[in-house]
């Protein structure tokens, strides 16, 4: 019976994906992609990857969708939809993609037996980091270097987006996100939802140590609330020269790196945690990271500065 859910889900996903690629209108493609993101979060749930499902719901349904929709709103009057290539290219592209998909499908259909897994190894060691959620243990302990470098990627992405600021506007604020049409409903939503959202965000971060959830999921929800307030004109996008803002961006990565070096002195290795204090250290690092992620995601959506700094 539960396989029925899977079959329906796969059918819907394929429909949304085909729609995303084939629909003529750009904005319809984005909407179909958002729908796909929400459906995928249900897939992750069916795969019992709840942490990923939360991330996909927050990012796919929230952040990515907003970025793409903003782009559509600004592109529509300017850019033509572009002309598709001729039938020869289309057929060649179709063939190439079909071959790739067929090859991948063949791999899926012949899994190795027994299926390799690090689950046992992850379970054996989890007591050393004092966490209940194995995914958090991977992100913050076993493979913490990836997580740390990914935070550097995020800071570089902020710099990369800011790099697109016209010289005259450097230091100023990103363009307003506010909706062109004032609306009481939006205003109400942006006043009532954020308190809920902040509680949920903090809950997800806090809960992430032992249950599904974690920094990124919580941080994204927090970012969504900030963006909602910006869209309802209850908060202005901050000027990019602000020291306070930049400290918030760097805070999480800096705490993480500091914890890493502290590990060398406390237990011998960079990014190792002394077993007795592992959990509090990890939770502290996660909290700092969630704050930075919320700010970074908000800034990435807001984009480069669009007005000169105020004196």
């Amino acid at each position: 019976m539960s396989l029925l859910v899977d079959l329906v889900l796969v059918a819907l996903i394929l429909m949304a994906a085909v729609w995303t690629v084939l629909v003529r209108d750009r904005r319809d493609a984005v909407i179909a992609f958002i729908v796909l993101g929400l459906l995928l979060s249900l897939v992750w749930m069916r795969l019992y990857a709840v942490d990923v499902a939360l991330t996909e719901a927050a990012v796919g349904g929230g952040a990515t969708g907003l970025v793409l929709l903003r782009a559509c709103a600004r592109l529509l009057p300017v850019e033509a939809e572009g002309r598709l290539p001729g039938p020869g290219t289309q057929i060649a592209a179709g063939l190439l993609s079909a071959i790739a998909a067929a090859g991948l499908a063949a791999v899926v259909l012949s899994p190795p037996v027994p299926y390799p897994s690090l689950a046992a190894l992850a379970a054996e060691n989890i007591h050393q980091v004092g966490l209940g959620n194995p995914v958090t243990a991977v992100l913050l302990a076993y493979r913490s270097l990836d997580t740390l470098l990914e935070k550097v990627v995020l800071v570089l992405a902020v710099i990369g987006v800011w790099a697109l600021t016209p010289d005259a506007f450097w230091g100023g604020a990103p363009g307003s996100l506010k909706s062109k049409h004032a609306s009481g409903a939006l205003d109400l939503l942006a006043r009532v939802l954020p308190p809920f959202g902040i509680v949920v965000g903090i809950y997800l971060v806090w809960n992430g140590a032992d249950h599904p959830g974690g920094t990124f999921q919580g941080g994204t929800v927090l970012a969504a609330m900030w963006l909602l307030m910006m869209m309802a004109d209850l908060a202005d996008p901050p000027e990019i020269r602000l020291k306070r803002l930049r400290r918030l961006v760097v805070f999480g990565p800096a705490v993480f790196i500091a914890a890493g070096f502290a590990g060398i002195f406390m237990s011998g290795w960079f990014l190792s945690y002394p077993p007795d204090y592992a959990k509090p250290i990890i939770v502290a690092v996660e909290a700092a990271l969630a704050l930075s992620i919320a700010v970074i995601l908000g800034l990435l959506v807001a984009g480069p500065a669009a007005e000169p700094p105020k004196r």
Partner: protein
Amino acid sequence: MPEFLYAAAALVLLLTGLGLMRMLWGPSPADRLMAAQLLGTGGGAIALLIAIASGTMAIIDIALTLALLAAFAAVALTLGEPGTKTRAGEGEQ
């Protein structure tokens, strides 16, 4: 009981899917705006049904996130609306 809840989840999914198709094909942009809305409620219901059916309470948090962000997506969608002209090309202020 789990079997019943799974079946209910599949049915909600199917109905949501039908609704989605309607939205995507629907004649007006507003129909597409409703798609995210629909997935917020439908997706939330499916997540809750599966959470209880499979006994994985953590899945409730997914429903919570979906519910929270469904409204967000609706706002984002109205934000994504072209301010200067409609799809048909007539001017609008």
